[in-house]
């Protein structure tokens, strides 16, 4: 959590290789990494749901899930033939895993509501073996119903034992969904608290700077 401009998104962008950190190191799964691009981070097992949904409007659900990592029937450079059936089946699996219901997989994303699109973006992270899923304000642009829908999916993923980092402004959502709260203020991590040992008031005072804790470095 953290106020606007506290550095949450920047932190995530550096973790996922969108931006390069100027100092410090990223240790993930016991190995030091320097990700030059989101693709490298993804290959290391970090899946991200970005704030600006990285979906192609004119493609259907399976194509979006497998964008950039398609399955093939046989390989022939750029003209490799797609294995549409395998991708469709894997998409159905990923949607079952996340509890997302999309009426027609072959519909383009353009025709879907904001909530459905966000669900597709989240299902995308679940379609592959990931070690960590990062979500940058997944409900920021959604209405009440759709937010509930996305929160349900996050809960499903969590119950399935998927490690998650959730970035959010919404105190209720955070206390609803997470085990551990990390607070950012002015580009630094000022608190790293277990949910049971803290409360909303406490977190707010860290966010506003009324209370300052020991400084943590690179707590990922």
């Amino acid at each position, binding site marked *: 959590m953290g106020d606007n401009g506290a550095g949450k998104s920047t932190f995530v962008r550096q973790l996922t290789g969108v931006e390069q950190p100027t100092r410090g190191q990223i240790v993930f799964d016991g190995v030091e990494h320097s990700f030059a691009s989101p693709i490298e981070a993804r290959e290391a097992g970090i899946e991200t749901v970005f704030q600006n949904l990285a979906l192609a409007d004119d493609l259907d659900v399976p194509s979006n899930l497998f964008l950039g990592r398609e399955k093939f029937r046989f390989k022939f450079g750029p003209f490799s033939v797609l294995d549409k059936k395998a991708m469709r089946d894997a998409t159905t699996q990923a949607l079952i895993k996340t509890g997302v219901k999309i*009426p027609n997989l072959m519909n383009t994303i353009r025709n879907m509501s904001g909530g459905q699109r966000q669900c597709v973006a989240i299902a995308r992270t679940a379609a592959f073996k990931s070690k960590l899923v990062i979500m940058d304000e997944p409900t920021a642009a959604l209405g009440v119903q759709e937010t509930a829908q996305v929160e349900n999916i996050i809960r499903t993923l969590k119950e399935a034992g998927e490690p998650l980092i959730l970035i959010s402004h919404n105190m209720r959502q955070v206390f609803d969904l997470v085990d551990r709260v990390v607070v950012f203020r002015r580009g630094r991590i000022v608190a790293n608290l277990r949910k049971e040992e803290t409360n909303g008031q406490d977190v707010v005072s860290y966010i506003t700077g009324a209370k300052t804790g020991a400084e943590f470095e690179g707590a990922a």
Partner: protein
Amino acid sequence: MAQTSHGIGGLTYDPAKKARPPELNVLMALVLITAAFELIGRVFLGDSFLFNTRDNVEGIFNWQRLNIIILQVSIVGIIALGVTQVIISGGIDLSSGSIVGATAMIAMSFAQTELVNGNPNPKAIFGDWAMDLPVIVPVLVGLGCGLMAGFVNGALVAYTRIPPFIATLGMMVFARGLSRWWSNGNPVSFPTEGYAAIGKGMMPVVIFVSLAILFHLILTQTKYGKHCYAVGSNEQASRMSGIKVNNHKVLVYSIAGMLAALAAVVLSSKNLTAQAGMGVMYELDAIAMAVIGGISLQGGRGSILGTVLGALIFGVIISGFTFLKLDAYYQEMVKGVIIVGAVVLDQWRQQKRGRG
């Protein structure tokens, strides 16, 4: 799946939002326009546009007319197949007409025959060494030139980040200049028999239809095709998803350049000559075919099938005006109206869907 299934949180799916394939609209337009010509013909000329009205020829349809309809759009149609891929990927290619001019001159220079009616070829460009070469030589030289021009287009668009409109406009002017410089504006003529066979009779149609099927399969079934739609739909998302967007663009423009060169080979073979002014305005006709065929200029939407239908609409209009014995000027004016109409319809359709 059930059409009214509910998502979590009570979200319902509105089946009305599912779009009708745009190709269907284009097909309907084709049928309507053809029917209009048929009707006007019956009423005012007492003759049929589509059907055979003569006793001395076999068949229900007027096959001669049907052949001409498709033959006269085949060569520009070949170019339109490449332009379609460029537009779906979110770009535009203005250079194809000029590439036709330049590659026709160059290819024909390697396709000349030494003796014309027993006299030395009066239009010879090179010396004896370039005479009566096997047909594969001019074809490969032509395709190679087109590939190079397309590669330059793609590299400019992908790496210098200048708008495709400007990059290909530059190529358009450059290639037209090249085609004039090549032989000081003189035509290059008298090809070998082998070369002349490429565009003979209905060969342009055969080539156009085979390529249309090939690229239809490529666009619908391969990674390249999927990435065309992805890049045209959301370039940033494609990049973040690991698609090598720059490489893809270079490939798309290269293929478009090669198809323009192939059209040049077919055209110069059909006409038995190459001239510096060949292919003028072809780029716009090709874009128009694609647009009429429902290819969105915003990228991400459209299909080869649409472009083929768009090309047929073009052919029907040209033949229809000839059939009604109207001046060619009207053709141009009507074509202009149809192009604008097609884009306006596409935009309305998008807005309607966006609101729904």
